[in-house]
């Protein structure tokens, strides 16, 4: 039972898209936090006005979960992440207090204009097997179940869902500013699931037992009647949509290249290898760069998603990190994907780290420490769920709880987690956050991975070898 008398209130504030409107809103209602801006490097903020109020900056995906589990009393995050949680856990301790009336766009179900899916009723009729890709796997599943799709497979992705249809997925559930915005990506919206607006949310238990009124009063001028944001369960399958159907050419060999931090070093590497590409070396990266080899299809997606996408045959080859390959193989050891060779860049260490104040120097001391039940269960934040799970099992840490994160696990320590398992380049960030490394699990660098079946396929073998040889030339 939590102590409700201390009056200490914790607020979770969003990173990313909602930072500046949220910062202006907080300033306007005299609830500002110094340092809450796009440029902030810190995670913990104190309220200038209420000494008992503290805030932490988290990924929006994490906010709905962290508020529901009770680590935060209040939070601000987008309706998409709230519904992604509630659709799976309707009885979860997450209460929507009010829309804050900013945010844009909606979550849509989309198909490729080239896929020839004209309306939703086609999806529930017949027994086609539909592949649905989404950053919102729960919303995607609820949509498919409500539509009574007979066969569907959901592929959760870290991002770049728009790049998948039509070759690598039949449908995607993703955010789009508008129908027109979606159309510019070569997609057609089949159904709008919900509009995305920022919401003030609360933990149910805190709301029922703790005095949050001082903070809620600040918001009072902003609280409005709730707009329709729950996902629409109706079987509205009448929308007739006409996509322009052009023929899309399937390529013999499909290669996935990384976006984000890995894009620049990968570009360098490909240039050294002498692979001529349009749309990847430039500042604005296309999701579908083109190569001078007419049999080669290239897509730019998240490196985290590549091992699974290579295993399921959507891609024959990909440039990703060894860490992400292991993350897949630890969970599904017989995945038909293998590493061909390391590329020598993007090298990181995967480490286990704890607060500098924890009196343990290595994992053995941590095991005894956990057994003495000071920290039972040990809460471990990680973006590598399977790697962390295996590491903790192998080291007989018992009991433990895993907290999945979407990067920046250091923000969770020490309040919301006791340990993190994450990648570091220099370890400087960890030191800044008063954390210490107690173990290095392994080193990881960028590597070329391949689908095992493609390597063995008589149709693909020759071209796979040609391409791998060409890429090998990029090694220094």
């Amino acid at each position, binding site marked *: 039972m939590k102590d409700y008398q201390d009056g200490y209130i914790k607020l979770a504030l969003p990173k990313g898209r909602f930072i500046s409107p949220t910062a202006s809103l907080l300033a306007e209602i005299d609830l500002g936090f110094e340092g809450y801006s796009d440029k902030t490097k810190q995670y913990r903020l104190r309220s200038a006005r209420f000494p008992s109020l503290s805030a932490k900056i988290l990924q929006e995906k994490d906010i709905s979960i962290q508020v529901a589990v009770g680590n935060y009393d209040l939070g601000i995050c987008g309706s998409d992440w709230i519904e992604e949680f509630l659709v799976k856990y309707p009885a979860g301790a997450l209460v929507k207090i009010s829309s804050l009336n900013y945010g844009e766009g909606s979550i849509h179900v989309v198909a490729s204009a080239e896929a020839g899916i004209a309306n939703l009723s086609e999806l529930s009729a017949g027994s086609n097997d539909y*592949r649905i890709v989404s950053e919102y796997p729960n919303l995607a599943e609820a949509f498919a179940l*409500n539509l*009574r799709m007979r066969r569907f*497979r*959901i592929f959760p992705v870290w991002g770049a869902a728009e790049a998948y249809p039509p070759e690598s997925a039949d449908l995607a559930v993703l955010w789009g500013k508008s129908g027109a915005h979606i159309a510019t990506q070569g997609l057609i919206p089949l159904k709008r699931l919900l509009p995305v607006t920022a919401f003030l949310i609360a933990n149910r238990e805190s709301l029922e037992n703790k005095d949050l009124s001082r903070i809620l009063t600040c918001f009072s001028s902003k609280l409005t009647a709730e707009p329709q944001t729950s996902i629409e369960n109706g*079987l509205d399958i*009448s929308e007739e949509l006409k996509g322009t159907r052009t023929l899309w050419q399937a390529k013999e060999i499909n290669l996935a290249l990384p976006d984000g931090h890995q894009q620049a070093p990968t570009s360098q590497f490909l240039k050294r290898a002498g692979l001529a590409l349009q749309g990847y070396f430039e500042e604005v990266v296309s999701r579908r760069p083109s190569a001078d080899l007419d049999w080669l299809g290239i897509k730019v997606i998240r490196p985290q998603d590549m091992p699974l996408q290579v*295993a*399921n045959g959507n891609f024959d080859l990909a440039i990703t990190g060894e860490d992400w390959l292991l993350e897949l193989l630890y969970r599904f050891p017989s995945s038909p*994907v293998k590493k061909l060779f390391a590329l020598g860049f993007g090298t990181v260490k995967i480490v286990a780290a704890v607060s500098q104040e924890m009196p343990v120097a290595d994992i053995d001391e941590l095991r005894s420490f956990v057994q003495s039940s000071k920290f039972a269960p040990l809460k471990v934040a990680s973006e590598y769920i399977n790697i962390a799970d295996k590491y903790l099992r192998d080291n007989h840490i018992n009991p433990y709880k895993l907290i999945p994160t979407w990067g920046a696990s250091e923000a969770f320590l020490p309040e919301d987690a006791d340990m993190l398992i994450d990648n570091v380049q220099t370890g400087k960030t960890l030191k800044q956050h008063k954390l210490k490394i107690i173990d290095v699990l392994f080193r990881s660098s960028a590597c070329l991975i391949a689908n095992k079946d493609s390597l063995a396929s008589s149709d693909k073998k020759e071209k796979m070898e040609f391409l791998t040889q060409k890429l090998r030339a990029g090694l220094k």
Partner: protein
Amino acid sequence: MQDLFPEDMLRFRRIEDVFRTCCRNWGYQEVRTPTLEYLHLFTAMGTLTPSMLSKVYSFLDWDGWSGERVVLRPDGTIPVARLYIDNLSGQELARLFYVTNIFAFEGTGKENRERWQCGAEFFGGAKLAPDVEIILLAEEVIRRLGISNIALQLSHAGLVKALLKELKLSPGEEAKMTNRILEGNWQALTKAKSTNPEVDRLVAALLGLKGKSSSFLHNVRASFPKASQDFKSSLEDLINITTLLDNLGCSYKIDIAAIHGFEYYTGVCFQFLAAGEKIGGGGRYDSLVPLMNGEDIPACGFALYVDPIMELLPLEKEQKGESEILVKGKELTPEIVETCFTVAESLHDAGHPAELDFTGREESNYRWVVLVSGKEPSPFMLTDCIQKRQRDAASMAEILKVVSEG
């Protein structure tokens, strides 16, 4: 999560034993399906309702990269239908039964996620006789378990579907209405006023009246001559079934709302209640096998819910039985322990239950006690717990002789 204690298991096994015996007597054969099934088996329209689907435990299997998901069996009938389609569809008739657990994702974490069912399914055959057969079989199991004050409620999915059609809703609204009804919200039906007062009159009559014989259905037929053809043919079907039940002396109540939770029923549906609680249900589901890509085979079946039935059975003490023997070692020396094991084995081989004890506790509820002292010339002392008599025994053969003679 729930443990079943020895006294629970006694009741559980009693239900199972009665159920198996009755099923075998009617010519049903036992099957068992895996706990893990593929999700897609349950997703098609006409299988599980959306609210049941939202409660399946689903996860990725060993080939998680393929995206194919498996579920903990959320229902008993659909897997048995799959088993029939995959392996037995060559048979014209298949009478199958099972005892199985089903799983439901339970949002609050307070209720049970795992429940047990005894079910029987009848694949193939004509209408009418199988419908009545499964009702009588279910009734027989409940009767033999000694559960009193049971009520049998009858409905008909075809009647309900025909009623919904008469409301002339849009396909989307009809689907929503079906879901509400299947979740037990029959009020929704009365609120959905149709444009046709005749239909409102029919809805009101069927929801308001509960008949106790086929005469009631004859009255309905006579009162609503303008009802649709679908309605009339379903009504005819129910009249035939109830007439047969009347003639066989099976009492029931006609309650159109006695359908719950499943989309796959097409014909007669029934529920058994005891002490106001549902303890079983079933019905005809002719579309399920073709929907699952099987042939056009009609089918019907039922399931009895073990958990509420266990609550209704009287507590039983573990019966030590008239023949149970306790073999006690006087001391804990290796020789005596060894002799005790030899004695127990000989008794088991001769068909007598025998339990070992080295604690020296007071014995109770046994027919015989064999005390092993290991001292010649009479290393055993045999106590007759009923006659309250003791005698020495020199050999195992002597013990067996006395015990066998009772």
